[in-house]
């Protein structure tokens, strides 16, 4: 069951990512593909004993997806720009990245591919109480910085909207 579930979620994950990257439809279709990808990602995270992370990510993705739909709808009414000229430099960069990634995967495979998972996970592994204790313990400062950053983004977005209206 694990293997079938992993395969199905992996296929949806990659299909969604390819839909975002290679899709030719309107931008809203990219948002749908991204949401499908995030749902599959959440499923894989549940399989990796991280249910809290999965729920948090999926909730944020659904909220962000609504905003992306608004943007896709607003920008779709604009006339498209000039046709894109061929960009050999970009293709060269992409090719180099893929080659380097593949080479790095092969080179480091012996180090990580045979490492066995821990035989026994702690009882509280991935539970909300454990993550909460860590977030408000040693990870308190990064959490605060990120929370204030998010607040600044929200205030900035509201200020931009107000200035435009």
């Amino acid at each position: 069951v694990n293997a079938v579930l992993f395969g199905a979620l992996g296929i949806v994950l990659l299909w969604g990512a390819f839909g975002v990257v290679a899709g030719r439809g309107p931008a809203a279709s990219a948002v749908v593909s991204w949401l499908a990808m995030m749902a599959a990602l959440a499923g894989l995270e549940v399989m990796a004993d991280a249910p809290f992370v999965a729920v948090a990510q999926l909730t944020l993705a659904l909220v962000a997806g609504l905003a992306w739909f608004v943007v896709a709808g607003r920008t779709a009414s604009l006339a498209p720009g000039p046709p894109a000229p061929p960009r050999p430099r970009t293709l060269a960069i992409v090719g180099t990245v893929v080659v380097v990634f593949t080479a790095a995967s092969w080179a480091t495979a012996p180090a990580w591919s045979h490492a066995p998972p821990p035989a026994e996970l702690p009882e509280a592994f991935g539970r909300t109480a454990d993550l909460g204790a860590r977030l408000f313990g040693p990870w308190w400062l990064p959490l605060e910085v990120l929370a204030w950053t998010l607040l600044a983004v929200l205030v900035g977005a509201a200020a931009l909207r107000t200035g435009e209206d």
Partner: protein
Amino acid sequence: LNVAGPEHLVVLSGLLFAVGMVGALARRNVVRVLLSLQVMLGAVSLALVALSRQHGDAEGQVVALLLALVGAAQGGAGVSLLVVWARGRARAGPADGSSFEC
């Protein structure tokens, strides 16, 4: 052989990161570029969760949570800037020299 082991998740996250990077570098549609960046963030998050499972330490999950917040901030900033940019472009007309398509 554990078919759905952490190492398989790491490989999958690597593939996902590569796909997202291709989109961020090669696409001209600005919505797709920003969503490709989100794909890359998702790939990193998956790798963190998988490695956290591999080592039996939940610190990776904490970092994945913080990464989800970074993604939300990036998405929020991107959305608001895109709306403002789209309005300005609508006023200026389609031929304003923008290098991105909408």
